[in-house]
């Protein structure tokens, strides 16, 4: 039960932060990516602000045996990059620029995002479903 309550607390604060920061406004996101247009630096403050508490949190994980609910902390990050990380990040960035929504803000704005917001989420879910067979194809190509 504690696990589910903590997850809800995290998701709720995440949603509030996304709304407050402007991440749910596609014009602000596209304004940040559009360095050759009317550039909007707000997102630099969002990312910078978000990294600060997490620097502390990762530091705290080194001094604790496990998380509050008893689950061990995530293992060390994989140093290998791999082609899927690059291909995936390029595709994700292209879609993020095209519409101005990434997964978190898309879900957070569900209640006021209208038809466009719902269509985006459904298309994203569709993309996630076909990602597995696409990964298999890319791995085959990379092995050639």
């Amino acid at each position, binding site marked *: 039960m504690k696990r*589910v309550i*903590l*997850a*809800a*607390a995290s*998701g*709720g*604060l995440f*949603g509030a*932060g*996304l709304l*407050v*920061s402007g991440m749910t406004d*596609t014009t602000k996101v596209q304004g940040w990516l*559009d360095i*050759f247009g009317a550039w909007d630096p707000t997102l*630099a*403050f*969002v990312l*910078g*602000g*978000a*990294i600060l508490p997490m620097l*502390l*949190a990762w530091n705290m994980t080194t001094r604790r045996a496990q*998380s509050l*609910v008893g*689950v061990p*902390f995530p293992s060390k*990050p994989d140093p290998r*990059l791999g082609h899927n990380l690059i291909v*995936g990040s390029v595709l*994700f*960035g292209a879609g*993020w*620029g*095209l*519409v*101005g*929504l*990434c*997964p*978190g803000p898309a*879900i957070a*704005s*569900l209640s*006021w995002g209208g*038809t*466009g917001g719902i*269509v985006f989420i459904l*298309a994203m879910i*569709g*993309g*996630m*479903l*076909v*990602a*597995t067979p*696409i*990964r298999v194809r890319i791995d085959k190509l990379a092995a050639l």
Partner: protein
Amino acid sequence: MIETDWIWGLVGGLMIGASAAIFLLGNGRIMGASGIIGGLVDRSGLSNWDERLAFLAALVVVPALLLPFYTVEVTTNITQNLWIVVAGGVLVGIGTRLANGCTSGHGVCGISRFSLRGIVATVFYLLAGGIAMVLFRHVLGVI
């Protein structure tokens, strides 16, 4: 950027970072939006479906409860062109699953632990987003 936008960006960013800290220190997990959704979509994360669903439900409900406190109309300003919306959504869905993370997982949680994967992913999706703006806004003029 209008007057106080950067302050709200910073405050909201701190809230986002604090929410990721709760998930990490509380549940021992990386707060990555695409991973939390994707694990339910492709059924790879059903073992802790309750955690994922609680996270996503609160992610929808809490901002909705904050809307009445806004004196200006809150809108996503999303494009009216649904073909663009579908293309963007599909790209985000495929891309985040291939890369195993998005802005929150790779950007917020990855960079803050100096993960090479998180940093490289962030560089590539920012570059791709910037190129998409040049191509689709300034060259083709479709967004």
